[in-house]
């Protein structure tokens, strides 16, 4: 009833390759987009902005990046935190060196810087794979954090070793710094995420995305049919790091405002991003959003229920939360290795037949 369509009557390749082949789904998507762009900014307040919406958007971007590398190209990375740190510090250096630059350009530029670093640390992937590569990316994580701690040039010789985002604007409206308004920061993040999610969707269904998936499914076979592992793996590392770098830049400049590298970009952030991708769905754009939403909302929910409602101590709530997250990871890997995105797909199948399933 909800999805009124019968059979596959596609006559063009274009129609077959549509992102949203069902009309009601297209409507749903655009309704959500209109709500997000035109309605939410009028009702947003500081709590929702800082606690839910901005972290969701930033983590969705990071999960998108990791999903390109892990979900589409099959290279497990535990260096997400380190690459986010590269993005954050690149953003800080560019912000302070060119104060008049449009913030959007700053974020994209920090993405490019991170992409370069990503290619460098992606080089070992040509020789090693699987969890050997995961260990290699751990080297990236620890090494990068150490670099940003040890060389004062990166944090402009500030006494505390912290980086603090100065006020920067787009079209005269502040999006970073203490004077930025909730709606402005929200719209800024949303616009970036919207544009680059669209880019990611089109990359992954195009030629380059298919070469990634070929490498993921079986690298030797892919090489034999003419996919260059060098190009596919390094481009996956570059694109993935580009996204993660932008997420790191936004995380620091818009969300945190001030960051200390070991605390803000530690190994726990790498795991968090990996969990988002697993829970959301490996190899799915929608999954990155669902996973990010799930893991950003879960702690907020836990805090509201257990601490505010029941009055439990925060440490008990925190322990229950990690237990639950760990349990959910195992649960999803056992029951639904393709994550929330696959659950959504199954729901859609059910809805197509409802109310007369056969």
């Amino acid at each position, binding site marked *: 009833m909800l999805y009124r369509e019968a059979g596959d009557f596609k006559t063009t390749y274009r129609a077959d390759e549509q992102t949203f082949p069902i009309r009601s789904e297209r409507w749903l998507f655009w309704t959500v987009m209109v709500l997000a762009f035109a309605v939410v900014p009028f009702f947003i307040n500081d709590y929702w902005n800082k606690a839910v919406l901005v972290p969701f958007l930033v983590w969705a971007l990071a999960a998108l990046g990791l999903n390109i590398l892990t979900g589409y190209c099959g290279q*497990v990375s535990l260096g997400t935190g380190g690459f986010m740190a590269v993005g954050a510090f690149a953003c800080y250096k560019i912000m302070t060196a060119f104060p008049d630059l449009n913030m959007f350009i700053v974020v994209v530029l920090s993405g490019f810087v991170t992409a370069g670093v990503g290619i460098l640390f992606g080089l*070992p992937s040509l020789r090693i794979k699987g969890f050997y590569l995961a*260990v290699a990316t751990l*080297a990236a994580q620890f090494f990068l954090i150490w670099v940003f701690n040890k060389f004062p040039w990166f944090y402009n010789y500030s006494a505390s070793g912290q980086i603090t985002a100065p006020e920067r604007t787009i079209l005269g409206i502040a999006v970073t710094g203490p004077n930025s308004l909730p709606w402005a920061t929200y719209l800024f993040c949303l616009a970036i995420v919207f544009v680059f999610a669209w880019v990611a969707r089109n990359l992954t269904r195009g030629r380059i995305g298919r070469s990634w998936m070929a490498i993921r499914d*079986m690298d030797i076979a892919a090489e034999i049919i003419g996919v260059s592992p060098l190009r596919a793996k390094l481009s996956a590392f570059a694109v993935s790091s580009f996204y993660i770098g932008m997420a790191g830049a936004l995380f620091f400049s818009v969300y945190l405002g001030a960051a200390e590298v070991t605390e803000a970009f530690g190994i726990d952030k790498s795991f968090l991003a990996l969990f988002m991708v697993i829970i959301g769905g490996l190899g799915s754009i929608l999954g990155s959003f669902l996973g990010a939403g799930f893991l950003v909302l879960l702690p907020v929910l836990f805090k509201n229920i257990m601490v505010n409602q029941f009055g439990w101590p925060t440490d*008990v709530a925190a322990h*229950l939360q990690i*237990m639950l997250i*760990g349990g959910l990871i195992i649960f999803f*890997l056992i029951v639904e290795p393709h994550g929330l995105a696959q659950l959504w797909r199954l729901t859609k199948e059910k809805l197509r037949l409802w109310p007369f399933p056969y």
Partner: protein
Amino acid sequence: MSPAFLNFIEIFINGLMAGIMYSLVALGFVLIFKASGIFNFAQGVMALFAALTLVGLQTGQVPFSHLINAIFGTDIHDWGPGLPTFLAILLTMVVMIALAWVLEKFVLNHLINQEPIILFMATIGLAYFLEGFGDLMWGSDVKTLDVGLPSGGSFWWEDVTRAWAPEDADYWGMYIDKLDISATIIAVVLVTALSLFSQYTATGRALRAVADDHQAALSVGISLRKIWVIVWSIAGFVALVAGIMWGSKSGVQFSLSLIALKALPVLILGGFTSIPGAIVGGLIIGVGEKLAEAYIGPMVGGAIENWFAYVVALAFLLFRPQGLFGDRIIERI
């Protein structure tokens, strides 16, 4: 001998000792990887969990007291003076075996035939679960663990080494922790016991058969599920030993679980499938790390201990992906 050379020896010996500690953790990884092909990321957290349980039993804490107090508004902490060390270790071992059984029943059994990387990620989930569970059960404050092992510097060795330096040199002898010496002895005993066990007992042979070929082992009537419970129990035992050593050294706290990350480069150097490899790899990493910190560290601002091991492992991987003692990797389509 000149003081500089004596310093070098001191750093070298301390590196070897630190390496033994890494090997203890790496050993648990190798055991599980050989028998089930699972790269168990949760090994470090298992060590933490074992140490937490041991301390809890030793001091007579009530499990889940924080949670119970939160739900029922009670105020309970202890149920008595606690158990003697020996009994507490035995009981902890029982807990670890129970953990292995539960894991096999509820997790591994459902993940048979999945890709290694899925299993790897499942053990990351397990690591998180166990960490939360352990903290919830025993509280997350830093605890001291004392099982009666000698600790502190060895004065005898200090006196011996001071005599080696010239009379007028400003040298005060080498510092070697007695705890590290006990760890070395225990590690040697453990490895000997494990190799004897796998060489001369029926269960040990079954373990090796499973490690060689799952299908072939099944066909001669070895129960995979039983073997997995045994292997995870042994890994739990190794985790307990590692937990005791690390816990006595630096207190039982969250950072204990991070030693698992340190064991990864050890494994890469030594190879995932070799017990001697875990030992040798641990020694190389331990010595390399300490020497690098002492001699290269000052040039670049110090604290390179955190990443040096990984970079060594990374450089090593590029030339020999299977590690020093690992089996050759053969790929087919």
